[in-house]
């Protein structure tokens, strides 16, 4: 075969050619200055779930930052290829934990997505899919309507059949829906609150949007646990979606609308601590100060709200709770991304689990590598989501744990779906639900032997 090209003569000392880096961005892709926090060291690579799977640098945080920089300085055009690699990011922020330079990657990827949505026209199928997600997920009433057929099928014992008949693209979506037979969570009783001093600090639990439809028990159990450690539990008059979905999808305006509504509600509740059973939502609340910093009316309130965001395990550790009930189980802990990387909470949930008599905590490998749930990511990027949850399930199985405990309903649905598909016996459970289980009537041990009371 003839070559039309011979490589440059190897004896030449031709210096590498690089275009000048302009002092100012040519296109407003992201806050240009933030890009220069990245010194290209590459320490983020192995902390990035998508790089771990594809092993391609364009699917690493450093690679995406390079894409943003190249889009901003005009050396690359926004085409399907660039969008593809920006889309593939889970926004897990694992790279922020790994980054020694303090790069605000979460901010950069959110900004770049706003730019993409404003400047790139997606194909019809993607637009339709995104519209459906955006129009339904933040609204519990619409979610319930959408789920009605599944609920009916479940009551008639036809969910397996429904799954079989569904087109394969729908099957992953169906798998994520947990059993819908109403679980009856016990709201924390006035009795719990009676022991709480009048001057005790107060906490409020935001019940989320998808969470209150699919995993509502976690909300009530979070409130119970907070009451049990001496918090006065306040309630919101109205909950709105936190805005995570919109931030993820580059829809900044509606995210701000949701944020404003929530800030008003949180302020009205007067709560000292703001908690969500969904750490994904909690991390968004913690970013309200930044999101609304230019809001004339609410900037100060948003900053106050952001400063009050905490999580169940941290509050429990702070109150020095002692567990007396024994609950014998082997447990492993999955670090939900926005709890570990977003809020920096890693030790508190583990400390809580270790403090329960009888609980044997075994660490899994890659406990803080994203499970692929990532908001609506498992609906929009099913292949990557499946690859990641498969890896997660393998790491869980290696521990032999009875329970995998975590702090985010999205992870719960995602991992549970995979464990169901595999027929694994490990049960996925939110920390709040696990605490209720452990503190409860000490139900029979998972190995089927008699209760260990």
């Amino acid at each position, binding site marked *: *075969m003839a070559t039309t*090209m011979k490589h440059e003569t190897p004896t030449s000392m031709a210096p590498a050619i690089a275009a000048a880096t302009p002092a100012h961005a040519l296109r407003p892709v992201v806050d240009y200055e933030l890009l220069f926090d990245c010194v290209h*060291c590459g320490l983020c690579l192995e902390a990035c779930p998508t790089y771990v799977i594809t092993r391609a640098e364009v699917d690493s945080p450093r*690679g995406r930052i390079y894409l943003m920089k190249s889009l901003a300085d005009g050396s690359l055009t926004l085409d399907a290829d660039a969008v593809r690699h920006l889309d593939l990011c889970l926004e897990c922020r694992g790279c922020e934990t790994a980054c020694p330079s303090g790069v605000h990657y979460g901010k950069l990827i959110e900004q770049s997505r706003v730019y993409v949505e404003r400047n790139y026209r997606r194909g019809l199928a993607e637009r339709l899919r995104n519209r459906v997600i955006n129009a339904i997920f933040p609204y519990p009433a619409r979610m319930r309507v959408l789920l009605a057929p599944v609920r009916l099928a479940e009551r008639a014992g036809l969910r397996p059949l429904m799954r079989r008949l569904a087109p394969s693209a729908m099957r992953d979506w169906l798998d994520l829906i947990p059993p819908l037979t109403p679980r009856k969570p016990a709201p924390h009783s006035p009795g719990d609150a009676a022991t709480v001093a009048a001057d005790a600090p107060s906490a409020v639990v935001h019940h989320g949007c998808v969470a209150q439809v699919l995993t509502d028990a976690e909300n009530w159990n979070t409130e119970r646990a907070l009451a049990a450690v001496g918090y006065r539990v306040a309630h919101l008059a109205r909950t709105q979606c936190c805005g995570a979905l919109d931030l993820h999808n580059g829809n900044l305006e509606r995210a701000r609308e949701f944020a404003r509504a929530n800030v008003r509600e949180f302020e009205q509740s007067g709560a000292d601590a703001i908690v969500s059973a969904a750490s994904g939502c909690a991390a968004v609340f913690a970013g309200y100060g930044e999101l609304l910093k230019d809001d004339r009316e609410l900037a100060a309130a948003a900053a106050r709200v952001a400063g009050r965001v905490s999580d169940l395990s941290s509050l429990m550790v702070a109150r020095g709770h002692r567990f007396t009930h024994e609950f014998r189980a082997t447990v492993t802990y999955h670090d939900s991304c926005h709890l570990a990387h977003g809020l920096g909470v890693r030790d508190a949930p583990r400390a809580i689990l270790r403090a329960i008599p009888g609980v044997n905590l075994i660490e899994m490998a890659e406990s803080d590598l994203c499970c692929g749930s990532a908001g609506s990511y498992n609906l929009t990027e099913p292949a990557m989501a499946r690859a990641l949850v498969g890896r997660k399930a393998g790491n869980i199985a290696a521990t032999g744990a009875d329970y995998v405990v975590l702090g985010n309903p999205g992870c719960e649905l995602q991992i549970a779906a995979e464990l169901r598909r595999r027929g694994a016996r490990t049960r996925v459970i939110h920390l709040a639900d696990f605490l209720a289980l452990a503190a409860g009537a000490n139900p029979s041990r998972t190995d089927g032997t008699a209760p260990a009371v």
Partner: protein
Amino acid sequence: MSSNGNSRLDPHLIAELRAALGDDAVVARAAELKVYECDGWTIEKAAPEILLRPRTAAEVSAVLKILHREGVAFVPRGAGTGLSGGCLPIGAPVMICTSRMNRILAVDYASRRVEVESGVVNLHVSNAVAARGFFYAPDPSSQAACTIGGNIAENSGGPHTLKYGVTTNHVLGLEIVLPDGKIAELGSAAEERCGYDLVGAVVGAEGTAGIVTRATLKLTREPEARRTMLAVFSDVDDATRAVSAIIAAGIIPCAIELMDQLIIRAVEAAFHAGLPTDAGAVLIIELDGAIAGLDDHAQRVGELVRGAGAREVRLAHDDAERAILWKARKRAFGAVGRLAPNYATQDGVVPRTRLPDILRAIGAIALRHNLRIGNVFHAGDGNIHPIVLYDERDADQTRRAVAAGREILQACVAMGGSLTGEHGIGAEKIAEMPLIFSPEDLTVMSELRRVFDPDGRANPNKVIPTPGSCVEVSTPRRQVPI
């Protein structure tokens, strides 16, 4: 170099490579190639025309046979964490990335060795054997991301090489795909080798001998105990003198690391490790070995550094305190990213006793070029790492940063030192090679290189300045694209 996707490679050749590797292993799109245009050395940039991502040695061999037939040059790349532009494609249109060859193949605890593919991440080797009380000793600061193949190319070191040695001391055997596609096994798993030390020739060859696809590495037993100390000095001169005092006393710590004030402040801002920001310098000193006698050694080191002028000596009381100190040290380079948009890390060596002189020289160079230069380095073996801060958007500043780096290297050489301790020559220092090697020395190296790579197609324009370019080499300043 092409970075706009209009490859100048023959489309038939690309099609043949696709057929050999599969579509997902051949990258030719502009957006995907763009991110490969530099490694941790960001001053020079060039994207390859095509990127190949093979999964096995057989695939690497198939590819190199094709490139051999067509006379096309290539450059290997691991995780792209290098700091000297070793994987910058200069005159090499094809880049071959080893990141998918990342399996740990076999661990033999009885013989203390592990067999890995070359794309395995350095730290993953240690993690895989930690439960059994072993580790892989060379620990570059980028160990959480860098690959064993990259370590082999650059003969990487790390803080603990003072006692344990650099990469070449830990590689027993290699599988290498030669530039013509033949697969050779060099060295062996046996401790005693006969014949030429070809493993030694390949380690540090920066990818100019071919592409290493598999390596048999030595495992090191975790020491029984460690003592990690932080010695705080008001004056950086005293800190460097303390280093010599420790070694002169016959004590070999497993690491002696120095951070100067600029670095201490960057690290404190990033990690809140509790370092005193008013100190002129700190030393992190780590002793390891059998528990018996270790505390005596630690006490002796404490006396020595106090004698040299340390105002405070802290001993890490537990693993958590030790981890904080090492986190601060290992991630110091990145923490510098908080101080300036860009930095260039220099890597030079001086005899330990000349550390006070070289730091003074660096201070003078910084002043002359009106640049900020921080120092964080492996003081125990005289391996300095001045970090030159600059902003790539300021053309003049970038030029001054490059000039300062060159002057620092010249100062190292003048003091009887060397051009690189562990980062390699890469694209960055090729012009400086004649500073320490005579034409005869370089000829021997060129001839050795030709044994592996007669056509000069494996990572061309690296390590050895070619005879034809001698005139350019001797120019005072390389042309640096701004």
